[in-house]
């Protein structure tokens, strides 16, 4: 079979099993788009801005575990895509990004829509390629998928000059079934000796805690994690990225940890003697002040990426390997059981945890006529029976969603944790809904974030994506406002967002259903009505209390044991 470069790209995607490509055409990728036009297997979803193509491919990958694929043109197409790429990079999401480039002979001449895409994306990709010969194209695509999906996953960019895709030049097509790279050999198995050593320490623990992150979700290791935690009877806290791997309603779950984690989770971290970190990277939003992090703990760290180990916090027992395999082996070692957990000590530990839990740190005023944002998330949970895919943007609403939508399954909570990208939620939801057309997909967002990719409402109409947008509208960049209230004596510098479009009318003008609710008593009815429109996108503008803040909160530079629990409260 002889194919042109453009046709090779499409054929490679087919052979790789790719069904959806999110993208936006332009001069440098016209040949590729022509090849897409001539076939039906690979479906192209036309976004309205390249940033959204990135987030959509990313959301698709997070929900399915398969690599997301996007295609954009050179120059501005590529630069617009950078936010999407960086977002995926920070959260280790497998993605293959095809960017057009000006023809090889004019590279470096400041040609129209030329930009050094490989240079610009280098710091925010797992790897990138510039294809210089048509003969290398298929193998490069194979390598890109291989790199993106193995080891610690991440986005891979392939920059393709226009002449490479020339329909007039055809070569024999061969898509390699495998690639071997001498310079890239991700670890496939954790060391059994280290695992045994870790288990021994775990069995001697009196105040152990599991601290698990996005790596568990990425490696589909929820089952072995849950089994291990329940077998041992240890408490577990999860990071923002890890939510859902161990069920939110599970009896050993302490809630999320970190800056806006629960009192019980953060206190348990502070008091623990054995910390078992799994697929988590000791991010600053999780650790608080590193000098005060888990002062008494022996730290066990399981991670596929050796550079994650002892990066921010010194680790005592490192185990480099895929978390699923390591957790399975760990469970096996536990079950073969030379030692048992220290049950008496664990009982006391749980009693202590229950005391912390009784502080009920997530309580909020439910008697108010003004809708509380927490309540909106709780009602969303109730109406969707806790089984929706929930995407979010970044800020207070993101934290409320993480705290109050108790995710029981992995891959249901989809948010930009590392980069913290406003504008992520709606396009990410498009990716999720494309992957699961029948599923309930909700975007929990704010009036500031949603405006950053609002144009995607048109994409949603074109592809009939019945997403439900739950806008927690407080008229502020809430998290910015919260910090200004706490740390800048309430000088709300540029954080007001009272001038917004009428979201109901705006939504209607895009051809969707718009609704607004502003009273607590009407909230549940409105939410039910929104979800009753099975085949329509509904935008529910929930007018919430503008003064509400996210608690608990560890102030910057403080340890886990120093939290604000409610308005005006002292550090506890």
């Amino acid at each position, binding site marked *: 079979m002889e194919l042109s470069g453009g046709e090779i790209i499409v054929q490679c995607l087919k052979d790789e099993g790719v069904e959806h490509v999110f993208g936006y055409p332009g001069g440098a990728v016209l040949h590729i788009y022509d090849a897409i036009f001539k076939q039906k297997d690979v479906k192209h979803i036309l976004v309205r801005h390249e940033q959204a193509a990135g987030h959509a491919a990313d959301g698709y990958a997070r929900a399915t575990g398969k690599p997301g694929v996007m295609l954009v043109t050179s120059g501005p197409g590529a630069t617009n895509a950078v936010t999407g790429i960086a977002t995926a990079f920070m959260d280790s999401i497998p993605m293959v990004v095809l960017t057009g480039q000006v023809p090889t002979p004019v590279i470096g001449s400041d040609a129209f829509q030329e930009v050094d895409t490989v*240079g610009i994306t*280098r710091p925010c990709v797992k*790897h990138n390629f510039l294809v210089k010969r048509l003969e290398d194209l298929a193998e490069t695509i194979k390598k890109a998928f291989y790199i993106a999906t193995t080891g610690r996953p991440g986005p891979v960019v392939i920059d393709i000059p226009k002449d490479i895709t020339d329909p007039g030049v055809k070569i024999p097509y061969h898509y390699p079934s495998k690639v071997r790279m001498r310079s890239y050999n991700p670890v496939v198995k954790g060391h059994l000796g280290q695992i045994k050593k870790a288990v021994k320490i775990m069995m001697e623990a009196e105040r152990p805690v599991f601290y698990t992150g996005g790596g568990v979700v990425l490696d589909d290791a929820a089952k072995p994690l849950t089994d291990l935690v329940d077998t041992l009877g240890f408490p577990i806290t999860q990071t923002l990225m890890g939510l859902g791997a161990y069920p939110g309603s599970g009896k050993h779950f302490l809630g999320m940890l970190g800056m806006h984690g629960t009192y019980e989770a953060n206190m348990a971290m502070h008091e623990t003697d054995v910390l078992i970190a799994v697929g988590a990277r000791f991010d600053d939003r999780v650790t608080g002040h590193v000098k005060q992090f888990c002062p008494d703990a022996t730290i066990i760290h399981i991670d596929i990426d050796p550079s994650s180990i*002892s990066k921010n916090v010194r680790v005592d027992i490192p185990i480099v390997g895929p978390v699923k395999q390591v957790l399975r082996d760990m469970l096996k070692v536990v079950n073969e059981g030379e030692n048992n957990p220290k049950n008496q000590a664990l009982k006391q530990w749980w009693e202590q945890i229950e005391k912390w839990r009784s502080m009920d740190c997530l309580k909020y005023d439910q008697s108010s006529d003004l809708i509380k944002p927490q309540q909106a998330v709780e009602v969303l949970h109730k109406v969707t029976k806790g089984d929706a895919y929930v995407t979010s943007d970044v800020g207070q609403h993101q934290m409320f969603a993480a705290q109050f939508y108790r995710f029981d399954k992995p891959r249901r909570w989809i948010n930009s944790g590392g980069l913290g990208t406003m504008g992520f939620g709606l396009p990410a939801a498009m990716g999720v809904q494309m992957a699961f057309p029948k599923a309930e997909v909700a975007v929990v967002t704010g009036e500031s974030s949603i405006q950053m990719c609002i144009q995607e409402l048109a994409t949603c109409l074109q592809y009939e994506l019945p997403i439900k947008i739950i806008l927690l509208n407080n008229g502020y960049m809430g998290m910015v406002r919260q910090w200004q209230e706490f740390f800048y004596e309430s000088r709300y510098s540029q954080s007001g967002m009272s001038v917004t479009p009428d979201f109901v009318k705006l939504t209607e003008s895009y051809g969707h259903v718009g609704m607004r609710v502003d009273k607590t008593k009407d909230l549940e009815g409105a939410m039910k009505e929104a979800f009753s429109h099975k085949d329509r996108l509904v935008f529910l503008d929930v007018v919430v209390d503008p003064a509400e803040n996210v608690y608990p909160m560890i102030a910057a530079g403080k340890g886990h044991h120093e939290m604000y629990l409610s308005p005006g409260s002292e550090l506890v």
Partner: protein
Amino acid sequence: MRHIISILMENESGALARVANLFTARGYNIESLTVAPTEDQSLSRMTLVTRGSDEIIEQITKQLNKLIDVVKLVDLTEGGHLEREMMLIKLRAERTQREEIKRLVDIFRGKIIDVTDTSYTVELTGAASKLNAFVEAVNEELIIEVVRTGPSGIGRGPKGLGL
């Protein structure tokens, strides 16, 4: 502490940029960096001199290893190793100074490789510290130009850094 990290990497365009980029992006310092192809045309050998605490050096080697183009690397300072750097130094050498400069070059086992009425150009090879010593030994006013390659390094003994 000063570390010499020797890296074997794919001889791909952009490979050097990836290393340089990593150092700026993560705030590590590079004292010097040399790179050239090896006997295997598909591989480049890079010698990188950096400074940092043990924790930072550990991160540097891990992050370098994570780069897809890096095939292998070794921190030479962890074992016995040899380090050589070449310097070309152009000196003002007029009548009265010529003999003394010549003697100094001999002491350091250097070579004068270009001569004019008023100047010498000296080639000197050795560990970085030896080159520093030479520069310090020469009267500062006599120095016209200094060009240094940055150190290259290799481990002692029969073993090599190969595939």
